[in-house]
């Protein structure tokens, strides 16, 4: 997608009259900012290991009304069928298939914009956030009121299914008022040809509230999934994030967490399973802006065939963010000769009373361990599977919701069955 095709699509979206006029200057501003730098290339420090050439070569078009499903869909094929779900199909909100638990409010982006006086705190230096703002669709805001604990999880199901080359830019706001809690699942599914999904999720977690965010990325093998997540945390808030990514051709997660209030904590976890020519890039930035905060980044990858992976984690401890406790860990197993892993765990520290550490390992399965298991009468494949299972179990076991945990285990099992390791 070159700049001129972006321009054509941009003119189209500016022409759509069902958006309120307030959005137009915001879009225009973002698009202009985007044009200044253009799409990232490998000379950009943050993108040096992810080649966006495949995206540049394809002309995507905006999703249209005709891309909405003609009739009601059966979403049970995507699993987790008992939980409350908001369905977004090719960028179109499917009201009839969606439900939300009591205590949660769902409003449209226009309504949310009215409430905020159309003053969004836009990201200016992130090209895909700018693109998202320029093209945002299927926007909504979920909010949980003060003191409300939502027991049952909520899922946002993004289905990307089309024969056409479509680009979709969902914009979601999630706001947790003081002392509330919620578990929320972001699931990407669908069977599509070339497809560009560029989502921006912006979360505000107020004082003493807790959010558990589980991201399941299972797009089809031709999809480009760019996920931008911005988390803003107040005093004593808690955010835990689990990503299970095994889909898409190029997957890039830009996760920015900002610990703005004293005593906030965030625990970020990710497991990437890649095969064929998949490329999954995790770009994780944690900003410690207040004292006494705790953070961890724990990302693991299993790479098979000719797949590649990137972990680019950065923890920034600002001046004055004393008593910070932060940890980064990145562990990768290369299962095949053609696989490649780039790991850049970074620490940027401007305060002195801190404890920060990071670790990174990359290697193959331990031959001694395989031999040990084999010598006890277990065949090679099972021995390897056993070791791989041990490697990922720490990730999966940490999900507290049993139902979701079961689902993730079943998905991992089927990945293991499909791949010879």
């Amino acid at each position, binding site marked *: 997608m070159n700049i001129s095709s972006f321009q054509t699509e941009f003119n189209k979206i500016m022409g759509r009259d069902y958006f309120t006029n307030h959005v137009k200057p915001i879009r225009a501003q973002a698009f202009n900012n985007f044009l200044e730098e253009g799409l990232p290339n490998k000379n950009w420090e943050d993108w040096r290991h992810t080649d966006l050439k495949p995206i540049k070569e394809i002309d995507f078009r905006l999703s249209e009304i005709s891309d909405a499903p003609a009739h009601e869909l059966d979403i049970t094929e995507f699993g987790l069928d008992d939980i409350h779900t908001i369905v977004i199909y090719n960028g179109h909100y499917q009201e009839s298939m969606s439900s939300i638990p009591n205590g949660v409010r769902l409003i449209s982006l226009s309504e949310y914009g009215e409430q905020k006086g159309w003053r969004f705190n836009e990201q200016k230096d992130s090209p895909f956030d700018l693109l998202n703002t320029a093209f945002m669709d299927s926007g909504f805001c979920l909010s949980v009121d003060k003191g409300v604990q939502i027991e049952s999880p909520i899922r946002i199901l993004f289905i990307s299914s089309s024969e056409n080359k479509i680009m979709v830019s969902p914009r979601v706001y999630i706001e947790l008022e003081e002392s509330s809690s919620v578990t929320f699942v972001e699931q990407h599914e669908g069977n599509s040809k070339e497809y560009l999904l560029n989502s921006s999720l912006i979360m505000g977690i107020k004082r003493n509230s807790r959010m558990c965010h589980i991201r399941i990325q299972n797009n089809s093998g031709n999809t480009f999934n760019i996920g931008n997540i911005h988390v803003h945390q107040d005093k004593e808030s808690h955010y835990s994030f689990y990503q299970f990514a095994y889909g898409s051709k190029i997957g890039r997660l830009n996760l920015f967490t900002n610990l703005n209030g004293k005593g906030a904590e965030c625990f970020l976890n990710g497991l990437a399973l890649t095969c064929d020519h998949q490329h999954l890039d995790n770009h994780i930035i944690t900003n410690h802006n207040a004292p006494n905060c705790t953070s961890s980044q724990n990302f693991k990858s299993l790479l098979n065939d000719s797949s590649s992976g990137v972990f680019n984690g950065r923890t920034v401890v600002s001046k004055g963010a004393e008593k910070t406790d932060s940890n980064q860990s990145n562990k990768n197993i290369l299962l095949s000769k053609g696989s490649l892993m780039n*790991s850049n*765990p970074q*620490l940027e520290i401007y305060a002195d009373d801190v*404890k920060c*550490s*990071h670790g990174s390992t*990359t290697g193959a399965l331990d031959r001694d361990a395989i031999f040990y298991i084999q010598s006890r009468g277990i065949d090679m494949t099972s021995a390897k599977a056993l070791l791989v299972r041990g490697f990922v179990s720490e990730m999966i076991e940490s999900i507290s919701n049993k139902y979701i945990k079961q689902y993730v285990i079943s998905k991992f099992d089927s990945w293991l069955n499909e791949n010879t390791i």
Partner: protein
Amino acid sequence: MSNEQQIIDSNLNKEYEYGFVTDIESETIPPGLNEDVIRIISQKKDEPQWLLEWRLKAFRRWTKMKDPDWAKVKYPDIDYQSISYYSAPKKKELSSLDEVDPQLLETYNKLGIPLEEQKMLSGVAVDAVFDSVSIATTFKDELKKAGVIFCSFSEAVKDYPELVQKYLGTVVPYTDNYFATLNSAVFTDGSFVYIPKGVRCPMELSTYFRINEANTGQFERTLIIADEGSHVSYLEGCTAPMRDENQLHAAVVELVAHKDSTIKYSTVQNWYPGHPETGAGGIYNFVTKRGTCLEENSRISWTQVETGSAVTWKYPSCILKGNNSVGEFYSVAVTNNHQQADTGTKMIHLGKNTKSTIISKGISAGKGQQTYRGEVKIMKGAEQARNFSQCDSILIGSDCGAHTFPYIDVRNPTAQMEHEATTSNIGEDQLFYCNQRGISSEDAVSMIVNGFCKEVFKELPMEFAVEATKLMEVTLEGSVG
């Protein structure tokens, strides 16, 4: 902590002890950089045509290059036209120490490295580089007996042109990076070492660099070649006089290790770090150091103690080409006051069973900013490659920063690669523990920091370990109590 704070404050105010300017007549080309200047340098040094052409190629390339901006250091733009690219003390070609300018010897005495004493006591051969031309070389005869060539670079160009031509630029090509290219165009002198087949160098080789002439950029070029089965340990140390304008130092060091050979390269760097309060006047240390383990079972080990300079930009690297070759990097870097350091290493694994170890210790105090930036690359053919990296930082005071940016790139599944890093301050509990056993805060901090650096110090040759501790006292202990 207030006691410790007091100690820190009092020591932070300590001025640079080695700051002085030696007044010697020297021959200097007026500032400016163009092809003519390069021709003059080449002519003054009586260089062969091929070297002049190589310099000019580098210069033409350099004019098209841009100052690198990716490092986490800030400094005002350098006006390359205001630097004089050649300066040599006028008295040259001395056969014995007696002929050396007494003022010069005085300089060395102030630094605590008197040539005669070293000659007698430590058995270290010193190729003293004062500004850009080597003026005294000792122990040459002994080395000659062993067949070792240890001379200034310009001598090597005259006496061993075929060796220089064969190896110059093979590890750091003139196109490599902005500062290396600049160096290739204008380098004035440096050291040259060749260890023949099967020879174990009978002594530690040492060069003391010293920038003296005002406004003279120092462009050293060092080339060390260890032939099959040989062994050499090379020491490099620097101190510089105090002055107000920033000085640029863009050196290039190339190491070539042949089959079964070992090169150990140790550096203690204590250039003027700039005014303690304003940071003005310090040295810019933009150095390109790289070694190639060309053939199997070769080994290159870098050890550095970086205590000086206003801005340090330095990544001693190893290219592990030969099977079973080994690369090592041990570093202690200290930044205090306004010092900035962006330093680390690169280990490029190409051969089978190659191993690399990285131990980096950073200490940041005052307003110092320190970055570890390292790259470990394990290429497809590097079966069973092994890397272990550990990068720890200590922060002292709330205005300093410590950053760790490792780049890890693994393309071979049989490789094993581990990296770990920690950043923390000196715990109050640790200090308290020492205090209650009757150890003063000052001693406790110094003990903890020394323990922190021990892993690296033990890699230093004996002759250097003493100086390293001394320099740490000035820079590091001065800031931590």
